[in-house]
């Protein structure tokens, strides 16, 4: 009925215009043909619409930086143009927020189609069947093109349960100008003793302090894991039991005590971003675990003449008396696809991720924070266009360091001191809990006996996390 009326109205208008001479005969015939075909096809439209069911998928990631959000918005809009029946709702949030949000969604059995997750989250979720393998997607993207060091952490019994969105490596950041002023050469450091020997020379309070560490439990746990790893030890044994009273772990606690005089007086209240600001503004000589994101802070807050890698250097991580090689953290949050999501949503999420990893889209994403979001594709690091980004060129020593860490093989995901730790499913629960942070505070600020504090922490981890996890 409506079709007829539109058609009739159009016809009347067309005939009127032809009679008035507003359009010539050829135009009239063309328009008449178009109008007829259009009118004839109108009844088919609802049938086509019924055939293409609209799918809305939620994709949660851990990159809330405004530039990254803008890139994701552009990518999802481009994807929607190609797949009008799929709407991607992409949401970025901080780590901790993501874990809380996932917790609620999983409890309600309404997970997103896909989300980011740390390696320990992938381990824990795949063991409980919360996420599903994504080999088909990885193969479609190009498994051989991806850094093996990126892929190795999400493989369980020959199947892949996650794919890193982008990777990074943490580093010991140091002020080159302060080292010069102090007459020291940090690039020659090899052991904790070398490091501690020069620490007083880098400590000039209140102008600046020798070292900065965060007091947020998650970060404290990570520092401890890095130091234990650099001292040849682990947080857990092969069975996943905590071994915080091992000589290597006690040595790491002892190191914390020794660096304390060079930390700002309220170091245990500082959060991670405060460390980056303090580093950029020259209030600390070293930041123990910085990520490439620091470049953004330096570009924003450091004096213009100091915004370069000659001033903001990467210094060598040192090893403890029982260690053989220093340890670096590998930042590799993975895209995970949730088993509980409806099938069409899972398929749509994989389709979106295939689109996301296409060069023209993926580079938009990586370039949103150029020296922090490193591409997972080997060839990109040989591509002059990728490397030619002004920020990557300016911070090239940092980028070279990142590549060197994954080539060294001593760059492990968060809280892992050994590749075997990846299979421990409760490592994430230990990492977010304050148990190890309490132990550190007891030793470093309250002067408790490290062995006693470590034994208590072992007991708490076993009783409050492992035993409960095994029953879950």
């Amino acid at each position, binding site marked *: 009925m409506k079709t007829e009326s539109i058609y009739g109205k159009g016809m009347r208008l067309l005939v009127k215009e032809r009679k008035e001479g507003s359009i010539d005969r050829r135009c009239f015939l063309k328009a008449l043909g178009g109008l007829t075909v259009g009118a004839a096809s109108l009844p088919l439209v609802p049938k086509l619409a019924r055939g293409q069911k609209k799918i809305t998928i939620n994709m949660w990631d851990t990159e809330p930086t405004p530039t990254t959000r803008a890139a994701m918005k552009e990518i999802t809009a481009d994807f929607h143009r190609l797949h009008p029946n799929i709407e991607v709702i992409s949401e970025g949030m901080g780590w901790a927020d993501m*874990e809380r949000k996932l917790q609620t969604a999983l409890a309600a059995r309404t997970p997103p189609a896909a989300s980011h997750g740390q390696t320990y989250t992938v381990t*824990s979720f795949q063991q*409980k069947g919360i996420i599903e393998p994504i080999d088909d997607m990885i193969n479609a993207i190009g498994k051989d093109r991806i850094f093996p060091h990126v892929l190795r952490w999400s493989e369980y019994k020959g199947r892949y349960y996650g794919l890193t969105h982008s990777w990074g490596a943490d580093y010991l950041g140091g002020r080159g100008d302060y080292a010069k002023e102090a007459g020291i050469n940090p690039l020659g450091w090899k052991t904790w003793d070398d490091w501690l020997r020069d620490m007083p020379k880098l400590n000039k309070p209140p102008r600046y302090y020798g070292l900065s560490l965060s007091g947020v*439990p998650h970060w404290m746990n990570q520092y401890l894991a890095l130091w234990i790893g650099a001292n040849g030890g682990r947080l857990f044994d092969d069975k996943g039991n905590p071994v915080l009273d091992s000589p290597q772990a006690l040595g790491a606690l002892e190191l914390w005590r020794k660096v304390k005089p060079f930390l700002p007086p309220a170091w245990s*209240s500082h959060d991670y971003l405060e460390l980056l600001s303090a580093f950029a503004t020259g*209030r600390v000589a070293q930041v123990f675990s910085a990520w490439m994101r620091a470049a953004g802070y330096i570009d924003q807050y450091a004096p213009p003449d100091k915004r370069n890698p000659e001033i903001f250097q990467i210094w060598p991580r040192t090893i403890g008396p029982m260690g053989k090689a220093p340890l670096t953290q590998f930042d590799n949050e993975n895209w995970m696809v949730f088993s509980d999501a409806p099938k069409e949503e899972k398929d749509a999420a994989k389709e979106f991720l295939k689109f996301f990893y296409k060069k023209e889209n993926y580079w938009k994403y990586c370039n949103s924070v150029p020296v922090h979001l490193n591409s997972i594709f080997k060839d990109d690091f040989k591509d002059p266009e990728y490397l030619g980004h002004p920020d990557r060129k300016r911070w090239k020593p940092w980028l070279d360091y990142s590549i060197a860490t994954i080539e060294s093989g001593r760059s492990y995901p968060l809280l892992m001191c050994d590749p075997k730790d990846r299979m421990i499913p409760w490592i994430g629960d230990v990492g977010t809990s304050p148990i190890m942070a309490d132990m550190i*505070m007891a030793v470093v600020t309250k002067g408790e006996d490290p062995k006693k504090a470590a034994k208590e922490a072992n007991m708490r981890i076993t009783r409050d996390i492992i035993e409960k996890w095994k029953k879950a």
Partner: protein
Amino acid sequence: MTAGGEGALHRFFLAQIDGMVENHNNYPSGLKEKHRNPRQAIIGVLLLLPSVALVLSFILFPVFYNVWLGFYEKHSFMRTMSWVGLKNYLFLLKDPRFWNSFYLAGIYTVASTALQIIFGISGALILHSEFRGRDFLRGIALFPYMVPTIIAIFTWRWLMNDMYGVIPYVLNILHIPGMPDAWLSVDTIMYVLIFLSIWTFFPFVCVNVLARLQTISPRLYEAAKVDGASGIQQFIHITLPELRNVLLIVVLLRGIWMFTKFDVPWLLGFGAGSGEGIRTLPVYTYQWAFTFNQAGMGAALSNIVFVLTLVGVTVYFAAFPKGEVE
């Protein structure tokens, strides 16, 4: 609006309420009967049902679910759960960290509530007196209470920061003896938490007390003056007794809110590191549920907090019975 104007408004509302009560009492008896018509009563009940359903769904269900969850061992991410009865409660009652959190929550509640009351009453007395710029000051008195918590806390974190905070810098210049090296260390962060809470929440006390001050009859003060009472005597014998009922409610509300306050101590200390010094019961509850990922234990702990609050309120009402409203 002047104090006199506000008094007039208050009298106007009282007159309106009196009028409504009088009108109701004057209803013809037939009309009262009509109110008891069973058909209308059923309609009334039906109309109330949506509200009752909402209350049951959004208030009572979560409460009962939480009580039920407290008897289970449940990992927050996993679907399975196992019945443990009172094990969670027995564990917590033997846990020294629970008692430490209870102690810290007590210190925080008592100190911050008492100081909010003192500063709130002082502020209200100042704002009640006549001076130039009073109206402007009344306008901005609520400002700290209106600032979003996250902004207030991060602003104070910056102000108190040991490396570039303005307050430690000024205190250092002044060479005041006994000042700590850092205000946000584990030993001193409780002072900052209390101070920050006073700054944020004292306007609530101030506004409530001010509202009551404006309705105290000036004739009481005039009579006291005639009898030769000093300002302090007037405050003790007139103002405080007149404020009694308002203060009873304000202290109760602020006490409950401080005891269950989570956002301020959490955002100030993140629960560990220096935050260990302000790991109050709500923070410890959150840690069990969301960092240890033990939902059952978190639920049990929040039930304990609920019971402790109820006990506190009962004791409070027993110790300070509500006086007669004149």
